């Protein structure tokens, strides 16, 4: 079952990444926020993001686990640009956008769970099948 605390921790970590990349983009400084996020991505497998769900068919739940896995992979693919001394503006703005997209899908899942939609949708799926 999904753990809210895991999702909260993931949201805070990804939010920290968005902060770090934005500050790098706007001020040109490599902050502890950015360093933390790079380390976080290197040590955190997708299974530990808190997005696994065992309570209903994926199609009812907007495919959150797959969407989150894809969004995370997109971040991982682009993250190496931060290893460069001076990443290009395009690289940084691209990375910033996909981190924000990643945050958005995590937040969407978090809000769905918190609002109780899961239970309502589950009830609906039980009735219709």
């Amino acid at each position, binding site marked *: 079952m999904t753990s*809210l605390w895991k999702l909260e921790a993931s949201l*805070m970590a990804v*939010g920290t990444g968005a902060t770090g990349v934005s500050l790098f983009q706007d001020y040109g400084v490599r902050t502890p926020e950015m360093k933390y996020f790079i380390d976080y991505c290197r040590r955190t497998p997708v299974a530990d993001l808190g997005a696994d769900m065992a309570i209903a068919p994926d199609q009812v739940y907007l495919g959150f686990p797959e969407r989150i896995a894809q969004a995370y992979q997109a971040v991982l693919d682009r993250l190496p640009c931060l290893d460069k001394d001076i990443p290009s503006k395009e690289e940084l703005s691209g990375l910033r956008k996909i981190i924000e997209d990643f945050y958005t899908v995590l937040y969407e899942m978090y809000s769905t769970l918190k609002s109780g939609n899961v239970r309502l949708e589950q009830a609906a799926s039980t009735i219709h099948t």
Partner: protein
Amino acid sequence: MSDLSKQPLRSTLEHIGELESDVSSTIRNLARIPYPRIRFNLEIAGKNYKAGLDAVRRVLTEYLLTRAQQFATLPQPGTGKTQTVDEILRKYWGRQLNMSYHIAEGFRTNFALEAGANIPFELYFLVFDIFKEFNFEETLVFRPADQFKSETFEETILEPLDSILQVGKQTILPGTLEQPPVPRDLRTEIQLKPANAIWYVSGEAHNPILWPLIIHESFHLLDNRLGLFQEMESLMGSTKKLPVLDPAKIEQVNKKWSKEIFQDIAAVHYFGPMYAFSLMNYFERLPYIRSVEHPEMSSRLYAVNKYLQTAHSQHTDYLTRALSFCKPLITRELARYEQSGELSDEVKTELDMFYDAVASWLRSRRITLFTDRLARYVAQGSRAREMVDKQIIDRVPYVDPIFTFDEVVDLVFTKKVSLALDPTLLLNVVLAVSDKYTPQGYSERLVDCMYKCRVKQAWDLALSSIKA
């Protein structure tokens, strides 16, 4: 409206203060709870949440605000313009501010739910009994929710804040801002007492059929704290390995599934055969889907069915009667999985070996299992005649004779007697007649039985202290 540019975060900080007051008020209202031990546990939980709210406040003031103030002094390259603290907070740390609010609200909500939980208090003691077997004395609270789960308070309170707390203590990289925002490790300053929550399905709080699932969560919790699974794994030695239920999945996933089955095997040994019925019943009520954390239902039922196939006891007819009720149900269910190909011979072989390893570990732990409790019941009950003969019956509250399965059913359901029978023995009897007597309709009587058993245990304990 407050002037945010002069006092950034004031409204948020004020709200956190309100949440702290709410938690304090809930702690004061715990006096209505008649059980001191449960009250004390909830008080500790409340204090942990207060510590959590204080941590959120410090994250906001000592980390976010300080960081924003640092950047407010810096001109942006290119434009040379500076931004206000509010602009910086909103633009760069808006997400963390938003989540901090949710997390703080969550602390207050959790505690309100735990303090007002609708689960019978007697079920706390079902868990305390298991804790006692492992000499485990940490705090426990029940949290009404929409699923069964266990969670430590470090997970509930500290983990969501971890990234911020870690960033706060990091040393600054060369060529960046010189001054660390929070030079000390804030995480070590947050004083949480070791505590744990077991989530239960709120709408099922008075459904005795699902009460045994609390045993499963108790083992999860103990495993989390005491490393029971790892202990069992090390006993397996190098010749045996954990089951690979799906070779297509990575080792980590298969290991998580093994842990889940480990809790099931421990739970059925501890609670007794009707755990299997409870598990199957829950799967029927809640559509079950395999996930990273949970293996196929067929694997779980196959593992608990191994217990049903091998368990034996000559003490009373409780075990045989319970088995005769639930074995055919589980066997039918497993036959369906076999026919559909969901439960393969390879998986069964893996589970057979694993079951033996877990059962062997349980024996080595010397905890009181269901069959041990049956033996103890018979030993105690056989003293009933002796008590009357020696005319010392007035000095002890009561010693019941040994009741047969049918006598327990008759007393509890027909004669409306609240028997002071061990809760696990009682539930293994009453759930095994749930086709005739809907347990949900008798939950109050069952709770009363559990209450009387606690009173009897307290008397026994007092008497043994006097003798000593």
